[in-house]
Every structure is written in structure tokens, then in C-alpha cells.
């Protein structure tokens, strides 16, 4: 059977004229990261981290740019990017709240923490607030089991949480105004 190889009519990539992988990023990656590895493909994770950190997600155009930069095919970049949960292939909120749901946390009060977040933000797990400020997800063990329950808010770990504590943290984060890009790790929308 022959395969039909025309482009799918449904495939549309949003583009902008400005590159996501900026000249400054290319320079830093070329000077500091590329020389570390025998093979260029080994820079895929560092490149994706750079984009994720800067924009809070990894747009398709950025993956094309990484492919061009490393001399790879875009499919090789998306293959990797879609595997690791830290990379968001769709935009998310300005701040990311990730509540640990693994063994020590669940049995030391995690459900109260998730409920407090849901109440406070008015969203369910996996959703983003209407104002685009917060995305809430649950993820697996954060390596803080001895101080359960734990949550990562952007790149900062919070331990021994209570409902009151996480609510206060959300208030502070909202007030801080700073963009929390570069946060985190788990794309609630894709499983394996």
C-alpha cells in the first residue's frame, strides 16, 4: 500500500517574524554548552530549557529554530520535547503551581493542599485562571518527602505545607508581579 504523503491540511504553525531563539541565546549556547558534548544533539535539552525558561513554554517555531541551530530535523526536537514533562508545548499561566501527589505527600495531607489551591484560584487541577496568572497541576515526588506535603511554585520549593500556607504563598506570588517563567515541570496535558 502506498502512503499518501501530502501535508495534512490541519497542520498550522503559528509564526512570528522575531525569532524565539535569539542571537544572544545562540551565542551563549554555542560558547558555553555546545563544546561540552561530542554530539550536537546532546544540546537538545539545554536548548529546550533555555526556551522554556524564557517564554514559559516551547512554541513550535522555537523547535524549528532549535532544529536549524543544531542541524537536526524538527521532528527530532518535537520527539524529545513531547517526552519530557517540564516542557510545555502550549502556553500556560504566568505562574505554575505544582503540588506533589506521590506517596509521602498524599498520606501526609496533600489533598487539603490541592483543595485549597482549587478553592483559592477557582480552577481545577490542569486548568489556568481566566486572567492567565496561575496554572495548577499535580506532579510526582519532588524529593521533599520528609517535609511533606510539598509543592513547587515556579522554581521555588515549599515544604511542610498547610492550606493556610499555600493560600498565603499564592497571594504573595500574585502580588510579586514578577513573571514566573522557567518554572517547572509537568505538562498535565500529556501523558505517555
Amino acid at each position, binding site marked *: 500500500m502506498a502512503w499518501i504523503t501530502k501535508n495534512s491540511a490541519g497542520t498550522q504553525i503559528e509564526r512570528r517574524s522575531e525569532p524565539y531563539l535569539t542571537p544572544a541565546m545562540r551565542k551563549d549556547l554555542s560558547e558555553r554548552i555546545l563544546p*561540552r*558534548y*561530542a*554530539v550536537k*544533539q*546532546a*544540546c*537538545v*535539552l*539545554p536548548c*529546550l*530549557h533555555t526556551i522554556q525558561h524564557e517564554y514559559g513554554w516551547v512554541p513550535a517555531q522555537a523547535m524549528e529554530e532549535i532544529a536549524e541551530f543544531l542541524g537536526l530535523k524538527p521532528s527530532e526536537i518535537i*520527539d*524529545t520535547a*513531547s*517526552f*519530557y*514533562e*517540564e*516542557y510545555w508545548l502550549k502556553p500556560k499561566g504566568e505562574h505554575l503551581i505544582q503540588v506533589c*501527589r*506521590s*506517596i*509521602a505527600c*498524599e*498520606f*501526609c495531607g496533600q489533598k487539603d493542599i490541592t483543595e485549597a489551591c482549587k478553592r483559592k484560584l477557582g480552577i481545577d487541577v490542569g486548568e489556568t485562571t481566566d486572567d492567565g496568572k496561575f496554572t495548577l497541576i499535580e*506532579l*510526582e*515526588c*519532588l*524529593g*521533599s*518527602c*520528609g*517535609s*511533606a506535603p510539598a509543592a*513547587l511554585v515556579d*522554581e*521555588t*520549593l515549599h515544604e511542610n505545607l498547610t492550606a493556610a500556607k499555600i493560600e498565603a504563598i499564592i497571594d504573595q506570588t500574585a502580588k510579586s508581579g514578577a513573571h514566573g517563567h522557567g518554572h*517547572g*515541570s*509537568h505538562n498535565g496535558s500529556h*501523558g*505517555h
Partner: protein
Amino acid sequence: MPWTPKTTRPILTSRIPTPPYGDWSKRHIVSYDEYTKTGVVPGYAALRKALTMTPEEVTEEVKKSQLRGRGGAGFPTGLKWTFLPKPDAATGDGGVRYLAINADESEPGTFKDRLLCDFDPHLVLEGIAICCYACRIQTAYFYIRGEYHHQAKVMENAIKEAYAAGVFGKQGFFNGAATKNPFSNASGGTGWALDCYVHRGAGAYICGEETALLEGLEGKRGWPRNKPPFPAIKGLFGKPTIINNVETLAHLPFIIHEGAGEFMKQGCESSIKGAPPSYGTKLMGMSGHVNKPGVFEFDLGIPLRTFVEQYCGGMRGGKKFKGAIPGGISMGILGPDQYEAELDFDIGRKHNVLGLGTACPTVFDEDTDMVAVARNIARFFKHESCGQCTPCREGSGWLYQLLSRIEEGNGKSKDLDLALEIATSMGTMPGTTICGLADGNNWAIRTIMNKFPDEFQKRVKPTFVPVRLGGLAVGAGV
């Protein structure tokens, strides 16, 4: 008989105040300068000593110590190193080869490597340098899980300090006059450089499996590789590669400086005839329903009860002990009658669990719902299975569905048989799965169901099987 520790001073935590030796509020990041001046072995003295030995002598000392890997499998470290191809006899050159340090620490319940990265990064770096010397490796990659943002920064800073001090880089320790470094001798004392880089993961538990970790380093999806070839022959970028856990490497400075004999005074012999011993201390992170959880350092062999009652302030709220996971959820569970279990490498054979794992116990009190525990664990494995092997990908999903149904009270008793059958089929038959994740899932679910059968029985409705009795249909609960 009460348990008495053999170790009277901290080894891995000599600069990280830890009860009963120190107060953990005094923990801080140890800089290069502080590292060289403090500790049970003054910092980098062991590396200097190693460099006066030949690489083979260093490997031999590690072999003699019978140090076993702290990443979960307990494989003898020195032996692993000898699997590397033999270097060229004339030049001492082993060709390009790599060290990948496993700092992926994502096994639920485990948080011990983090302690070293948090506070004493140079202990790890010195271990890395010693290993690289023994194995003639010139490039080391520190693969750290993506969620350890702070720890990655601490390690980056420490690596910078180590470059400045000549531990890494072209000019330094390895090229000094007093070294027996075969490379520096061959090339007039300036040819050898050890480089060390942090490589951040990106949220994938499976990248802790050593060949998946290599895939992550190569910029690919974290799919474990079929073995053989083993990484020591064909690993990163197709070159011979050693993979060691953070804590394993942190033991090396003590072993090299004080000698294998001193190391073997800690820990315990095996109580099983012919089985290998569990020498040395171990970082053990306690979590769950105890009063004072946290990471401690003990001789291998400490009974779980002693750990909980003597060092962690007992069970929270004075509740009764019900069960514990010995070291990461892949290991299975210890039941209520296994509170005395000694935390050493014999635990698997003595207490019907997979093994010691990471020796980070998660303890449950009498109020814990074991069906919920099983469901939580099944969800983890379903989420983290990489999907390459059918028994693992499909089995983990089925287990999660079945256990959720049972937890919600909608299970039938035949679901219990089905769940056990699925669990038992995962990873038990050699060759049906590529890596050990499926086996961990199997052990976890199977041991919980077998050690707490009543809790599962109570939750399910009898399966209705019509039986014909003299023409009358009679329902029989099975």
C-alpha cells in the same frame, strides 16, 4: 537486644549537621575553602592521595571495600568499573570514555542525594574526580532531575570553585609532579584534564534508569536501551560509560583516604550464608507518619523500629505501626509484623520485598488505607511508564483502573485476582520488558495485596456466579 551503632562519627554527613551528631538547623552550603579544612577527611586530601596511587590501585581499594551502589540496585562499585575495556598497555590510554552521575532521584519516598547536593557539593565532586581517575575518564556529566532547581545551582557553583582550584580543568591536581597519573606522565605533566558539567533533566522519572539517563544526555526521549551491550562497553555517544549514584561516589573519599578496612568496620555482615555484606553507612531519608522525619546517616543494618522509635521520635500521635516501604515505592511493602526488619541489602531475601532500594523508608500508621496506597503507587507507574514494552504500558494502566475501582467500592472479588495476575505478569518473565520499572510496579502492588489481603477483600463485592443446584439457580459469592 537493642541495636548499637558501629559508627560513632558521621562519614557522609560530617559537614552536614545531622542528629544525633548535630543540629540540622546549622546546615549550610559548604564552600571549597570550608570543605578543604573540615570533615572526617579533610576535603580533597583523598583525591591527592588517590593521585599518588595508580588508577588500578584505586579501583582495587574500592573493590576491596565491597562498596555497593547506593542508587537502588546495590551492585558492587569496584566490580562495575572493571567492566570497562582495558586501556592501552603502553600509553595507559583508554580512549574516550565517560562518567554519568545519577542525580535523577525521582523514586517516590527518596530524598537523600538531594542532601549532599544541597549542602556538601564538594564531597560529591571529590568522589567524581576519584572515580574518573580510577577509570581514566576525562568527562563527567552530572545528570540532575529538572525539579532540583536549587540543587543544580549549588552544584554549578561548586563546579566553578573546583575549576578555579584545579580539581577540574587543564592545569591542576591531575598534572602535579607527585601524581602517578599515567596520562600526565606520558605527556610531560600537562596533558590530562578532567571536565565536569551539569546536565539538567526535564521531568521524567524513567531517566533515573541508567540507559534512559544516557538517552536524556544524548538529547533523545528517555527510553531505556536493551542490554547488552552494557554501558561500560557501549554507553554515552557509543563510548564506554560508567553510571554511578551521587551517594555511591560520595563514599569514595573516605574509602581512599582511610582505606577499605575502615569502611568495612561500618555497616554489617550478611546474616544469609554466602550472601555479600552490607558495609558502610547509608543516607536514610524517613518520611510518612513519624514525629521527626528527615535524612539521617546510619550503619547499614539498623532495624526499622530503632530508626523510627529512637531517631524519629516514634510514630506520629502515638499511633501503631502498620507498614512501611523500605526505600522507594518500587521495593514493595513491609507488613505490620516486619517492623523489626533490618535495613541492609539482605532485606529483600528476608522480608519478601524487592530489596533495600534507596533505604528511604516511608512509614504508615494504623489509620492508613492500604487500598489507597496501592492506587497511589499504581497511578505513579502508569504515569511514568515510558511505553516501550506492552506488559508495562498496558499493565500499569490496567492496574491503576482496577485499583481505583476497588478503592471507590465498585470492585468485584474477581478484580482482585485479575489485579494480582496482571501485577505478577509484569517484568517477571525475563526479556518481556526492557527495564526494571515494570518489576518495581509488580513488587509494589503484589506485596501490598498479599500482605494486607483483608483490606482488599473488605472493599469488593462478591462476584456473582450462578450455580445450578437441582434445577434451581442459586447465587454463590466467590
